[in-house]
């Protein structure tokens, strides 16, 4: 498993198959059905998440997004690296080691009485 801190612009990462996603008004809600976590991505993180198909290095994704949004490639590259490290710690990327403390803080908070029935 790859340490998320080691991810950089040369990394190739892919969304976990255990994650189901829903885009709503530009945000994306991610549910990991094995970890029981839920995360909400803002529109920038959503744009990055869409590109994580495991086919391209992060630098190519940054170049693609910078062109699409007509903005600075270097800044987008920094955003992509920050995003994939965070997504990795959350257990949302294949082959990247998750961080248990980070995951715990995103577990769905369902009251016991709704689960006990």
């Amino acid at each position: 498993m790859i340490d998320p801190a080691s991810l950089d612009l040369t990394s190739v990462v892919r969304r976990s198959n255990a994650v189901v996603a829903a885009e709503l008004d530009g945000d994306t809600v991610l549910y990991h059905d094995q970890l029981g976590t839920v995360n909400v991505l803002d529109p920038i993180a959503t744009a990055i998440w869409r590109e994580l198909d495991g086919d391209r290095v992060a630098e190519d994704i940054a170049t693609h997004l910078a062109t699409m949004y007509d903005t600075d490639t270097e800044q987008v590259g920094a955003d992509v690296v920050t995003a994939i490290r965070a997504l990795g710690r959350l257990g949302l990327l294949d082959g990247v080691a998750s961080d248990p403390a980070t995951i715990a803080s995103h577990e769905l908070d369902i009251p016991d009485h709704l689960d006990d029935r």
Partner: protein
Amino acid sequence: MVSEETARWAVTSPSFDALGHRFAIRSTHAGIGRFLTDAYTACEDPDAAPATRYDVLHDLAGDYPHALRIDGDEVVRSARPADVVGHLTWHVNQQVIGRGSDLVLLHAAAVSSDGVAVVLPAPMESGKSTLAAGLVDRGFRYLTDEAAAIDPATLRLRAYPKPLSIDPGSWEVLAHLRPQVDDEVARYLVDQWQLAPARFGLDTVDDDVAVGHVVFPRYEAGAETTLAPIPRSRALVRMLEQTFRFERHGRRDFQALARLLATARVHELVSGDLDHACEAVRRLVLGSDDLAKARR
């Protein structure tokens, strides 16, 4: 006194079917037997063979004369008749929620107007039953005050029209709906009123309705009434947190609720006043243009 062996049933209810939980109620006391039969009348289904039988025994010998038996097993024996009704209604809820595996079940009240449902998801003690009662009292139709059942294929809401369970904190504001019962039956209701949907008038219950609105209600004593849109992403997380047995069908329920929210209008309602809260929901559902026309 009625001995346990020779109980004679003063009332035997028809069969009820609540989202697949088929049951009937018998009572040795005519008053509470009729009351409970009326309370669940909206769930009546003459074709349903009862799988569960609730027996309410009123006047057994000894210090604990009140009992509830479920399929012959005594599950409550108490000096307080309210314990019997409390356990019966709780058990029915449990069975409904335990059985509805083909439905997404939200901890929510739901009402409808002109064939459009308003779902009111909220944690316990948020005032959702009181708000549902207030809305039905103002002409909305009733779907449930406990479990909003959504078909994941069609996203339509199916009714679980149990009696509305109203806690003492709301009795004053709903005083005109106080159950009209004699003193003996009233002892069964000292912890919680159980209001039959028919208490609000004929044709009160709706079923199989499209969801147009999701409103997250929160009662706050003394609060000004505010009804504000919230992001759908945040609404989805809050709905997941109010989904019964979410982990059993997590992926299916997530996808269904996301699809539902893609088209529903989503708001948060904070209020310390039932009249104002109901008016805010009425305006939302009717729409300001339609409301203006209705007033002309």
